[in-house]
């Protein structure tokens, strides 16, 4: 890669432009369809989808059971499906068990419910360290877990995309599903944060 490549030293913007021209001329990409894909991920597909899934699971025990049994199917019930969402498995965080998600090899992530992954999720430091020293890394990210809480690191692959169902915070019993949605953060659904009561 960096070794052989004169290519890598050319600005990526220019290489991208050259590649896009060649692919368009050869009829291999349709620029209109491609623009739609990009704008979809820039503006539509994001953690709000996952927050709706979580809020429903918190307020509807039947849905919660379906979500934990077959994540992809339960998520599809709310209209979220498609690319990188074929094999979503939801895991529940409790007072004693904390799941945290990583993709050690690249950047696998459940796009339909969380959108595209944030920079830190793709970063080599997070990807290597969360496996070896999850408690320390979570503390550095602002989440201190008691020693007795068991941490399970979930490694995403093309076969399994993990979604964390965070613990519903105490003091939110009176809130409706709709009011719970804005409390649920992307970081909580990756397992690097907890959901806070308002």
């Amino acid at each position, binding site marked *: *890669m960096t070794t052989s490549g004169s290519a890598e030293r050319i600005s990526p913007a220019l290489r991208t432009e050259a*590649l896009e021209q060649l692919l368009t001329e*050869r009829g291999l990409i349709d620029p209109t369809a491609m623009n739609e894909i*990009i704008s979809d991920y820039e503006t539509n597909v994001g953690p709000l989808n996952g927050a709706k899934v979580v809020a429903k699971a918190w307020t509807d025990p039947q849905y919660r059971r379906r979500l934990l049994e077959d994540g992809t199917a339960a998520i599809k019930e709310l209209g979220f499906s498609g690319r990188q969402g074929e094999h979503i498995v939801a895991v529940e965080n409790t007072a004693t068990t904390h799941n945290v998600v990583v993709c050690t090899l690249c*950047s696998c992530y459940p796009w339909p419910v969380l959108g595209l992954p944030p*920079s830190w999720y793709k970063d080599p430091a997070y990807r290597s360290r969360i496996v070896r020293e999850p408690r320390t890394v979570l503390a550095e990210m602002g989440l201190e877990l008691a020693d007795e809480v068991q941490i399970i690191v979930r490694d995403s692959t*093309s076969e399994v995309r993990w979604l964390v169902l965070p613990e519903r915070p105490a003091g939110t019993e009176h809130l409706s599903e709709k009011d719970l949605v804005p409390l649920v953060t992307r970081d909580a659904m990756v397992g690097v944060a907890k959901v806070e009561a308002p």
Partner: protein
Amino acid sequence: MTVPLDIDGPAAPPRSNGELAFSEPWESRAFGMAVSLSEAGAFTWPVFQAALIARIGAWETTAARNEPYDYYQLWLAALEDVLAAVGAVSAGEIAARVQALEQRPHGHDHRDDHDH
């Protein structure tokens, strides 16, 4: 390798949901090309993913400690690898087109941005 978490830099963990999907326009084009091509059947997503894993793995074993990690550069390189392997676009063709683009008159706005 043990690297400190990037607390303030570009890979810093944000405390909200409000991170832009792409930090530069070319990143969105590189992303869109890979997704479009796989959906059009030019290659399968697992093939692209394997190329991306290979690029990331190679970077992690060879990069100097202070070299910044640029995910979408590796993504773009993986896309070029796959397109060369399936015989769609060769590295030489990309290099030739880059050269042609560089010879455009100075001041030409050469980014065909994602709004068109």
